[in-house]
């Protein structure tokens, strides 16, 4: 029609046709959020419980009664690191099968459930703090901050040595009462190992003997490091000549600086357990590596070398622990004791090439399994002068110190 405003401006057209955010929309949205928020607030008003007091509860348990009340259920679940038990070509585990044959207890073995100490601890601690089962009845935890936390919070069961005759008979003196777990009350050593440098000698020029060598310009983009902050800290402190056991905040800052300015430019990636896959796929020629991982693959990769860095390196102990909320603790305990026999431990060791906590394993492998590659290997059993440079992870006083330590080394891994 002639009189109608047939020449609307663009703005008017937009105003007439476009939906807009009205007050009603805002009210609706706000209303929904408030309702949900109120409900959530009720749940959250108490906040999240702290764990400071849980240790006291555990300290008051009578452990012999506790164990007496447990029954053998015929199965248990075992969380472990990758490549940390004997495995056949098709994926079966002979020692676990022998265990099942002898005791009738089935093992649900979760290979590679643990890829990184801190991440695994972070995964299980919310459930433990809530007093709930974590799913595994046995897991392997490295000595260090997380280990101490587990013990102090009373989240792991104390082991009943009366039920572990093999342990008492065959455990290595270092495993009977380790420095981090007096009298081995809370754990039983699974393996001992070292972290050093591994490299494909056919992919790089020259030999590597220490951490400082990794900063050479010709290795740009060829180095892979572990993302484990303890490992990085000890490597860098060793280069700077600092004793990790007595290091201070100042030392940590200097070490982190060295890592960021000298070593990080050559690094292509920071790995957790996945470094091994990258190394085997020849994705990265030089890696910070666990000793047994590399020694065990040398038959497939004859040109792969493992060295103990001349400046210093870490020695660590991985320990079997039973969570206090486990559903099948007695079955797990039976396995621990079964493992501490030379024949069983030797079968595992011959495959994974770490250092066994069971006496007589080295001899057993040399005599019965006739694998002198392992028993005579200077890399599996380094001489005393090399071992003198081995360090344990630094011990943190409390969470504040631990948080400071991680905040100093974290940016090295995550970048900026």
């Amino acid at each position, binding site marked *: 029609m002639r009189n109608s405003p047939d020449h609307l401006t663009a703005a008017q057209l937009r105003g007439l046709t476009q939906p807009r955010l009205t007050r009603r*929309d805002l009210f609706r949205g706000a209303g*929904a959020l408030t309702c949900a928020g109120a409900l959530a607030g009720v749940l959250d008003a108490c906040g999240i419980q702290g764990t400071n007091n849980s240790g006291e509860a555990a300290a008051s348990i009578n452990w012999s009664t506790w164990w007496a009340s447990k029954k053998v259920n015929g199965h248990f679940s075992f969380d472990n690191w990758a490549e940390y038990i004997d495995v056949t070509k098709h*994926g079966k585990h002979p020692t676990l099968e022998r265990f099942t044959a002898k005791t009738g207890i089935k093992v649900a073995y979760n290979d*590679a459930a643990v890829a990184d100490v801190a991440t695994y601890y972070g995964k299980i601690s*919310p459930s433990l703090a809530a007093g709930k089962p974590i799913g595994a009845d046995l897991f392997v935890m490295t000595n260090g901050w997380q280990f101490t936390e587990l013990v102090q919070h009373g989240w792991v069961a104390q082991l009943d040595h009366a039920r572990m005759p093999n342990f008492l008979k065959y455990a290595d003196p270092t495993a009977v009462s380790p420095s981090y777990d007096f009298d081995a009350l809370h754990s039983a050593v699974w393996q001992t190992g070292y972290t050093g440098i591994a490299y494909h000698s056919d992919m790089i020029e020259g030999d590597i003997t220490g951490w400082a060598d990794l900063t050479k310009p010709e290795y740009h983009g060829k180095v892979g490091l572990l993302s484990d902050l303890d490992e990085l800290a000890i490597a860098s402190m060793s280069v700077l000549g600092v004793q990790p056991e007595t290091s201070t905040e100042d030392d940590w800052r200097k070490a982190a600086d060295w890592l960021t300015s000298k070593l990080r430019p050559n690094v292509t990636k920071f790995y957790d357990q996945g470094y091994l896959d990258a190394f085997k796929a020849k994705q990265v020629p030089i890696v910070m590596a666990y000793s047994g991982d590399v020694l065990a693959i040398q038959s497939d990769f004859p040109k792969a070398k493992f060295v103990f860095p001349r400046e210093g390196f870490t020695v660590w102990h991985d320990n079997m622990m039973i969570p206090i909320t486990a559903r099948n603790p007695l079955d797990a305990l039976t396995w621990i004791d079964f493992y501490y026999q030379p024949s069983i431990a030797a079968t595992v060791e011959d495959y994974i090439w770490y250092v066994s906590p069971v006496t007589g394993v080295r001899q057993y492998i040399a005599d019965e399994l006739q694998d002198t590659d392992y028993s005579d290997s200077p890399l599996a059993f380094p001489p005393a002068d090399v071992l003198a440079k081995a360090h344990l992870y630094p011990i943190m006083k409390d969470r504040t110190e631990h948080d400071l330590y991680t905040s100093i080394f974290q940016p090295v891994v995550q970048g900026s």
Partner: protein
Amino acid sequence: MTTSVREPWVANAPLAPGEIPDRRPRPRPALPIFYWIVVGFLLIPIVAMVAYSVNGASRNAITPVWKGFTFTWYAHLFDVEGIGDAFFTSILVAVLSGTLSIVIGLPMAMALARHRFWGRGLISSLLFADIAAPSIVVGSSSLAFFLSLNLSMGLGTILIVHVAFNIAYVVAALRARLSGMGTQLEQAAGDLGAGPFVAFWKVTLPLLVPGLLAAFLLAFALSIDDYVITSFINGSRQTFPLFAYGFTKKGMAPQVLCFGTIVFVVAAIVAVLTGLLNRRRL
């Protein structure tokens, strides 16, 4: 003045069949070539997976180098500890969460597509938020929530969360179908004396079957492939993606790839069969 007469243009005669010029549409190969390149690119890892599943290796880990053809991994498919359980759990969760999300989502889709009511926008926003929330946010908040409720992580929690995120996708898929379908047929059924329930059961539902199937497949696929959310709330219960992720740390076991190949082959067979059925119908 003579005006020239413009003769109307008229063809002298219709073209004889032999004179019709042979005009085929100009071949435009760019798009089909692009399509096949993309399909090829998509298939590269699949081909690698199948190849590695029949590649011999001395250890229980694949190697990039070809070492000879072997079926031994298929023969020892279940030797890898936990692989059967993980696969079964994944299928179970996918089927259950797909079914449950349809049972819950279909009425919701009907309400949204067919009725105008106060709160419709709100519910749509809720569903939008459900799709839009990043997996990592959903996973971490669900874990904290379940712990505050004192629940144990396991199959139940996995199922709960999978249904929660599947509902939005199912409703989206069904709602589109329903609004496309229109209400004429139900109205006709009503005219013929059918009550609302009967109309739904005998008219709407049969028509909706392909839509339900598509929604179920969507929910099934999303559930079976979920990693991030499930990694927070699974407790000790392994699903296949979680199980496979552990192997990315230490070297993929060939049997995992065998399972992947089997799934792929089954999906391919189903796809071919439905393709044949569709063509028969067309």
